[in-house]
């Protein structure tokens, strides 16, 4: 279970997230939906541990992972997968290298790494692109690599920050069904951020609408 407990985050004089409380049950697909600048991405970054709240707490299970002004549990120990809006694929590494980085960091053996990477690339239909670099892939393929990179670590939750915003509608539709298929197969918790109503309705089992840093509707 993931729990935001009255979290507030300010940047300079501007409040990005204000008194934000939300509980996410395991296996849920929660979509945070709202206009640009309403604080959606900040919520994801706070949960990922890339930023600390100014007030309030974030809990994962019974453990407080972030407290006011402090990231108690660093990002790499939260077991979360994160897919960025611009994907952030490492351009100097191959597809295999992108997937392997996190596994190596967690001390997974070579044989196990090879097995998990092979499985994951098959799941996202990229088995034949393991040796390619991100720059050699199409937009849709890059998107699937980002997804595979986040999921190969078997995270307890997958955080996605407007991952389909740069794709055309056909490709976006295809990838949405890929995400839902992977969720069915792997059963992870999904926290998905978007400003597209259509995307939100298709993916969510629970919809959270944000406005000016607050939850306007849940």
């Amino acid at each position, binding site marked *: 279970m993931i729990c935001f407990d009255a979290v507030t985050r300010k940047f*300079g004089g501007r409040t990005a997230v204000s008194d934000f409380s939300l509980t996410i049950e395991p296996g849920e697909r929660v979509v945070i939906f709202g206009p640009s600048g309403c604080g959606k991405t900040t919520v994801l970054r706070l949960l990922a541990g890339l930023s600390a709240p100014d007030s309030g707490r974030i809990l994962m299970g019974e453990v407080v992972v972030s407290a006011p002004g402090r990231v108690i549990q660093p990002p790499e120990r939260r077991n979360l997968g994160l897919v960025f809006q611009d994907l952030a694929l490492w351009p100097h590494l191959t597809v295999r290298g992108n997937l392997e*980085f996190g596994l190596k960091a967690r001390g997974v053996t070579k044989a196990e790494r090879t097995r998990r990477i092979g499985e994951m690339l098959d799941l996202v239909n990229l088995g034949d692109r393991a040796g390619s670099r991100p720059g050699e892939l199409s937009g849709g393929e890059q998107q699937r690599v980002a997804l595979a990179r986040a999921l190969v670590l078997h995270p307890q939750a997958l955080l996605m920050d407007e991952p389909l915003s740069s794709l055309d509608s056909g490709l976006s539709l295809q990838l949405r069904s890929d995400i839902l298929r992977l969720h069915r197969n792997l059963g992870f918790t999904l926290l998905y951020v978007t400003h597209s109503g259509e995307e939100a309705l298709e993916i969510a089992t629970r919809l959270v609408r944000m406005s000016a840093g607050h939850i306007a509707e849940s």
Partner: protein
Amino acid sequence: MRAKSIILTAAALTLMIAGLVPVLGLFVSSLFSHGRPGYLYFERFADSTQPWLLLARSFTLAGLTTLIALLLGIPLGILLGKSNIPFRRCLAFLFTIPLVIPPYILAVLWFYLLGRSGLAGRIFGPWVAEHTAGWLFGLPGCVLVLSSVMLPVVMLLMIVLLKTVNPRLEEAGRTVSGWPRVLRGITIPLILPGILLSAILVFLLSFGEFGVPMFLRFDVFPVEAFTRFTAFLDQGAAAAATYPLIFVTLVLLTVEHVYLCNRTYALRPLTGAHSHLDIELGKTRGWAFFVVVALCLLLVLLPISILLWEALSGGAIGEAIIRARDSLMRSLAYAALGATLLTTAGFLLGYLIHNRALRIWKSIDSLSVFLFALPSTVIGIGMVTAWNHPATGFIYGTPAILLLGYLAQYSAIASRISVSTLAQMPAGMEEAAQAAGAGWLRRFERIVVPLSWKGIVGAWLISFIFCLRDTGISMMVYPPGRDTLPVRIFTLMANGSTGLISSLCLLMCLATMVPLVLGGIFLYYQGREQEI
């Protein structure tokens, strides 16, 4: 369009005249030595081991300096550019000081500490002084001094390079791994081409340095060229002695061009909403701070303190001001003129390169970098051979020759800063003005220049510092009776008292520190503005 072509072509021609004429002069001059064919000098490479020994020494000195500058500069750049270490801006500023002082002055300061009659000897006795002096006058001393001069080059480049990495790439790494692995696996590989470029730059600058090895009596090739020129008055042999320096510069720049040019993933300054992720040092913060401060004390504050001690206790400040006032004023005036010329030409060249406005944009960029990497002795000797003729006396006998020298050696600084500044300006800004009917001159004056003013100010300040500290070119070509302060100190060092020399060095340091402080304040407020 016509005005644009004329102005940019004029800027390109100015660089070519300033830079290529000395190189051509060297070539012609090297064909003769004391009236005989100059190739006789090249035969020494076959007949004698001395040139090879000098070359090996030059490579050893430059190689060791580069290694140490990288080993210290990379972690220092990471700590001061990307971590939450306390007082990081202040520390970065302090570490930059040795870069803005003429390198030989730093050698003098270490001499005051470790020389036979230095402070170490006075405190620990003559036995220690004997050993420290023996160590200082030779390869270890040269490596120590040049490493402290070159360390800020690597450190500053690291700080800039780290800012070019898309923070999302590091954040993606941070979600699965700690900072050490992210730095090793993501950040460093992404900026590796830039790090290698800084290594090449440090190697070339150390390879071409003559002031420090000359003072510390460690014979290397630039010293040989300088001695041939000044002591033996043999222009041809001096010109020929510069060939290995030119050759090494060309080879390394070609390596840089071929291997590194297309391996840059993200080396453009990021603007906009990219917030940079800082390394939280946690429990190691105190230790890291302690180590960095200790290094700063050793390499910067200790020599500066010795300088202050010697200068203030020598009671020669007044004499130094009287004896060097004219040189100091001239230095400041030449540096201001040089910086203005460099900034103007550099901005036009930067615009030319950034917009690929002329077909020769790549050649112009390569030429300016080649000239910057070329040892100052080479450019200096080249300028004498090219311009010291009755027909060109109106240039050679006046400060114009110094300005030409500055333009040849340092135009890459201003043009590269300008390219970087222009890269941050959306192309639509100028295009919108063009669509509104503004001609190129008006667009340039009303849109491009005002939007680039921060880069222009930065380019002027850095150019000013480089012109002010210049020793190599100034020493070779200063007009009679119009020496600059670094030249005056260098010539007085042979027979001046410690008090006088240290006071002159203090004046020199203060003269270069003022623009550095101004630049630091400027960057501090610019940084605060960006944070807001």
